[in-house]
């Protein structure tokens, strides 16, 4: 039994160690401290729980821009009807620490001349 417990724990660590690259989202620590500006075109938008995702095409890559919950998105003035595919959009946010993710935690969205404040700046954490 003791050996079984030890084997279980060891194999769990071994299994996890194979995933050196974290598939980051949801967790502020997985996003870079420096802000960046993303200028691109809207591909798709999902105002959803547990959090919304805005897909933006910029520089040949599709970025996943993370929004808040349905309630949070509605409160800051976002809805799925607001966005039109192909429209230009500007997003301020913190990119994932892994540049290959092309993920962005949104801070501010500028769309059709209007500014939407999403999350307060997490740069000072």
């Amino acid at each position, binding site marked *: *039994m003791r050996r*079984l*417990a030890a084997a*279980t724990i060891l194999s*769990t660590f071994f*299994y*996890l160690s*194979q*995933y050196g690259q*974290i*598939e980051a989202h*949801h*967790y502020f620590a*997985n996003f870079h401290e420096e802000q960046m500006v993303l200028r691109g075109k809207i591909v798709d938008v*999902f*105002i*959803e*729980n*547990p959090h919304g995702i805005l897909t933006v095409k910029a520089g040949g890559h599709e970025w996943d821009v993370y929004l808040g*919950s*349905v*309630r949070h998105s*509605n409160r800051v003035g976002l809805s799925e009807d607001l966005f039109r595919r192909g429209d230009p959009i500007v997003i301020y946010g913190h990119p994932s620490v892994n540049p290959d993710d092309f993920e962005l935690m949104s801070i501010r969205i500028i769309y059709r001349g209007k500014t939407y404040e999403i999350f307060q700046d997490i740069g000072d954490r």
Partner: protein
Amino acid sequence: MEDLLLLLKDLETGMLAEAMRKSPWLFPIVNTLHILGIALLFGAVSCLDLRLMGAWKTVPVPGLSRIVVPVAGTGLGLALATGVLLFLTRASRYAQNPVFQIKMGLIVLALVNLALLHRSAAWKAAQEGTATEGRRVAWAGFLSMLLWLGVLIAGRIIAYW
């Protein structure tokens, strides 16, 4: 593998998954019930496990398990049902999350441990009140607690992975 991924994609585009994502309140309600299920399950299970490990030796096992087993069963049922709904919202993504896979593995191990214990002669003796101690039963209690705690931890880490 490809077929499984397609099946999961179908599940997450289904009506139930859509409702879970689009409704402002459904997700938090189901999430709350999931936590309630885990609280009932782990709360009840840990009482019996500690007893099997040698705590409260004056408390008879049959009486304790009569209370604790149905509470744990209700908790498990609630956690499983709500867990399926939470999984559906992003089925393909969760299925590929290594922490989610570990959590499912730990649940299976915990249930196997439970089934083995319930089939053992030592458990039957404890249920009849003839023998309440025993290394085998104590180890089963220890493993049960370790595994369910692992399930709890893995469950919480999924969102941060």
